[in-house]
């Protein structure tokens, strides 16, 4: 066990992962862990490999070296749809909702899987419609007609349909109005209270430090700093050095 003080097996362990896009070397040996139910922030400037780290965990890009473990089992090389069924939810940076599908059909993409009976379905839908009443109102509207903030809510709600153990959340507040940002902040809290782990990539440093238990700071494709979120604030030298705030 490396940095984490917990003795439990981490939910997700990324171990010395190297990832390439064609010939460009994006990740230079990234290692991190997320404990069950923990919110972990991933900070860094644009282009340091935060999103690529999430994509590597989700199996959307294959690392050339290193392993990703879920519950102690290697998942490197498994197709993304298997990983989704194993309990990884993914909310990408550009949201990527299915624009021509209705809100309800977007949710169905995560809901229509084996082992979800009628009661469970109803409970899951009721849950997201309680958190995001606007989605209930617009359930038969095409996803592409929603506003940016509503699309972000739909992207998160859609991932929740998978009942994931962890959600990989890529810049959920990017381009949103302050009111929407605080709503996203609240939903992170709710997910955390439900015991869902979150790996949060954000440019909004105060929000990340507030929402997370631990943070990793990345630069040039590797993790440069790692600490409890309570140990630092926006004025900490580490933040200045790696994020230039």
């Amino acid at each position: 066990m490396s940095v984490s003080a917990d003795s439990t097996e981490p939910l997700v362990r990324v171990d010395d992962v190297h990832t390439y896009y064609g010939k460009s070397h994006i990740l230079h040996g990234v290692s991190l862990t997320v404990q069950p139910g923990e919110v972990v922030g991933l900070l860094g400037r644009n282009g340091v490999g935060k999103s690529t780290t999430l994509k590597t965990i989700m199996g959307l890009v294959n690392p050339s070296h290193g392993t990703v473990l879920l519950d102690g089992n290697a998942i490197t090389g498994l197709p993304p749809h298997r990983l989704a069924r194993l309990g990884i939810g993914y909310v990408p940076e550009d949201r990527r909702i299915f624009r021509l599908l209705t809100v309800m059909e977007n949710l169905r993409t995560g809901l229509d899987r084996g082992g979800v009976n009628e009661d469970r379905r109803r409970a899951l839908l009721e849950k997201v419609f309680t958190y995001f009443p606007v989605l209930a109102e617009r359930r038969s509207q095409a996803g592409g007609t929603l506003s940016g903030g509503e699309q972000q809510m739909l992207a998160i709600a859609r991932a929740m349909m998978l009942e994931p153990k962890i959600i990989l959340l890529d810049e959920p507040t990017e381009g949103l109005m302050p009111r929407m940002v605080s709503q996203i902040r609240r939903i992170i809290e709710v997910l955390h209270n439900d015991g869902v782990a979150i790996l949060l990539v954000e440019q909004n440093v105060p929000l990340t430090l507030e929402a997370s238990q631990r943070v990793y700071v990345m630069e040039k494709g590797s993790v440069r700093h790692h600490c409890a979120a309570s140990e630092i604030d926006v004025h900490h030298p580490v933040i200045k050095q790696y994020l230039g705030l």
Partner: protein
Amino acid sequence: MGAIANFLHAIPLELIIIQTINGVVTGMILALIASGLTLIFGIMDVVNFAHGELFMLGAYVGVVIVAVTGSFWLGLIASALIVGIFGAALQIVTLRPLIGRDPLNTILATFGISLVLQNYALWQFGPVSRKIPDPMSSSFTLFYLQYPWYRIVIALLSAAIIGGFYLFLKYSKFGVWIRATAQDRVMAQAMGIPVPLVYTGVFAIGSAMAAASGVLFAPTTGVDHSMGLDWVLKAFIVVVVGGMGNLGGSILAAIFISLLESYAAIWLDPSQAVIVSFVALILTLLFRPTGLFVATPK
């Protein structure tokens, strides 16, 4: 203007009505073939040059089953099922390994499949055209013609199959998977949708629809190893005119193109009437390259 009005008046109304019915009947068969083709393109980015051969294979399977069992309707259903399963196997063996490769690879692969299937049919069944007997021999009087009821049944059945398929796409779990995959295959995978299975399923459905149209069409002419060529060419025109991958557009385009050819046949020899389709194709490519029935180009 007067000259044009006189010219149009010179065409007997009966002829226009007859040609409209003919156009809609061929249009529905064409729509059935083209919807499979456009679906396979829209979802898998595969231009399936073997689609006409799946149509031909469907007709031959129909010939065999009708000969053995004597039931046309059993032949129709069994042929769709058998060719559907064959299509799934074909996709797994030949196209699945090519996912992520240059589109040229899949074009060559499907072209190869079409040659193999054609020559297999020639070797197995010989060059003489086979016939599926008309499942219903009754006809009705349409002006000076005895119009076979069966041709009307073809149009209705094709419409029913397409309608059923639309409902399947709209409401079933697999239908939602297909539409999600068509829009964003990466995100579909991240939502747990088994995209390779969706690909195979789509190819199987497209094959089954081609086979069904082959059996439906067979009684009106004959069945031979090259019967797919004409149809696949027209289906490609329809798919382009309707907007590549656009199901609704393809169905409209199929009826539109068939009506055009039907009307052109009033003046031209039917074999020359095909020219009209090509003119429509060229005009579409020049002025509405995203398809004739697409509201706004994206």
